[in-house]
């Protein structure tokens, strides 16, 4: 690890001043990802800005939904959250071990680095780590990598479970910068790799995630998260689905089907949502939606199994929601 200047601001304004115009500054919150990136010298900031002293934790409820502070830990244990947004609480629980969730924050979870092993091991070429270096994963072992949204430059998967749930809930990321506050829909926070995989998100220089807003919505309460992984717990998703359904008189009015573990960003399966809208949630509809969720998949020879897993997670999530009524 290279040495750095350590700063611990007490206000958001002070934090923004420490990062704006300092591209070599890095923000640390829970640190559960960044500390490993620093240790492996994948990130070498000259200045480390520790934001744990900022008043950005806690939940704030209103008629419109809940505002979750960026420093709220992933271990958040709030019965009201579990009742209003089951998909979110289930995704958090599936996300990591209790020790990690006690430290990991909402903001950090959204902005964590990809887990592509070629990104994590510096002796391999990686366009995301080093623009223009090439992508060792494309000719390498791609079993765990993406089947949607890839490019010739990068096939990494975004590892967050929480972000998939937030996408299914139409959540918004609140960002503060020296020029003020703006709101970014969760689905627009991460970029697809295209030719520039090193541009991972749409935050501007010096902007800080301060909160996530989850709106009250008719489908939030009837939602669930299903995650397939290589062992029963404490592993990243091979494929996962955050699904929410709003029905009236037995007919689906609106739905969200979002996928994790299969794309460089939390992936919205709009074709699956269309397959649900206006139909009864019966076996045939579930099967059609599960199939539609794979639309646009471009697997590699070694991860075609993920197409089946996508069908499986969507089918299982919808079947669970069907039982709930």
């Amino acid at each position, binding site marked *: 690890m290279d040495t750095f200047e350590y700063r611990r601001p007490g206000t958001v304004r002070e934090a923004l001043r420490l990062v704006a115009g300092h591209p070599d500054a890095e923000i640390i919150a829970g640190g559960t990802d960044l500390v490993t990136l620093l240790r492996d010298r994948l990130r070498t900031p000259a200045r480390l800005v520790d934001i744990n002293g900022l008043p950005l934790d806690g939940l704030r409820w209103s008629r419109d939904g809940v505002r979750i502070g960026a420093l709220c830990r992933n271990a958040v244990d709030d019965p009201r959250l579990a009742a209003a947004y089951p998909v979110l609480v289930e995704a958090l629980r599936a996300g990591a071990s209790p020790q990690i969730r006690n430290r990991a924050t909402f903001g950090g979870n959204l902005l964590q680095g990809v887990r592509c092993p070629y990104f994590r091991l510096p002796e391999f*070429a990686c366009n995301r780590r080093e623009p223009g270096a090439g992508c060792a994963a494309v000719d390498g072992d791609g079993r765990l990598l993406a089947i949607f949204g890839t490019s010739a430059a990068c096939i990494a998967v975004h590892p967050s479970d929480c972000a998939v749930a937030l996408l299914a809930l139409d959540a918004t990321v609140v960002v503060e910068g020296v020029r003020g506050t703006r709101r970014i829909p969760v689905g627009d926070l991460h970029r697809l790799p295209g030719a520039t995989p090193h541009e991972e998100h749409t935050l501007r220089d010096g902007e800080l995630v301060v909160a996530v807003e989850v709106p009250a919505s008719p489908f939030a309460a009837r939602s669930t998260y299903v995650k397939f992984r290589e062992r029963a717990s404490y592993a990243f998703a091979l494929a996962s689905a955050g699904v929410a359904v709003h029905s009236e008189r037995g007919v689906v009015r609106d739905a969200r089907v979002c996928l994790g573990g299969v794309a460089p960003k939390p992936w919205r399966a709009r074709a699956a949502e269309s397959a649900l809208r206006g139909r009864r949630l019966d076996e045939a509809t579930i099967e059609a939606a599960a199939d539609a969720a794979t639309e646009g998949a471009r697997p590699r020879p070694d991860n075609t199994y993920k197409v089946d897993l996508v069908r499986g997670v969507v089918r299982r999530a919808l079947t669970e929601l069907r039982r709930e009524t």
Partner: protein
Amino acid sequence: MTRPGRVRAVLAYFGGPATWRTALVPRATGAARSRSHPWRRHSTVVRMDEGTSRRAVLAGGLSIGVGAAVAPAGAVAGAPAAAKESLLTLVVNGRREKLRVDVRTSLLDTLRDRLALTGTKKGCDQGACGACTVLLDGRRVLSCLTLAVMHEGSEVTTVEGLAEGDRLHPVQRAFVDHDGFQCGFCTSGQIVSAVGLLAERPGVTAAEIPELMSGNLCRCAAYSNIRDAIEAAARMSREGE
């Protein structure tokens, strides 16, 4: 004990089947990238000389690990910038400790190397194994994934801080009674994690324990006894109240 073997074993646990990580290696050399593989870079043979204690070897092995990961890595990139330091106060096991730390030092290394509290173990040093679990202001966390400098004024409880004199903590007692270990390397992490778990959820059921202890790996697979020990400790603490 060499670092590569240890790292690879833990990564195999963490990242998926061993084949996933090991499959990468031949390609690394095949790709003939200029820098050596990190596993090789960290590879150092620790020879057990006569009279060398296990602790000395472990400590030596550790400092080699740390050295390989920190100091020479900086040197590789040319002249490293002077290490930045910071004054830090921690309350460790009820004792106020004032020390000057390199800003890069993990909480784990601070506990082990600066405060000689070697009960907290360094397994993977990347958040996969749970051997380094401590209580930070009462909540269980991984001490390898956080920097000491971030915890000015915090209270840290390590496995050394659980017993009262010769009286074992109920969770420690339960691990002994239920044979909740074999080689013992993961045990301090398991016990501290279990203490944290019981604080989070005093009414925990046997069925919930495996998931809630999923952050602590045991290569000897003493899991069923660990679960029994934690269940017994939970029951005892509920009945004791």
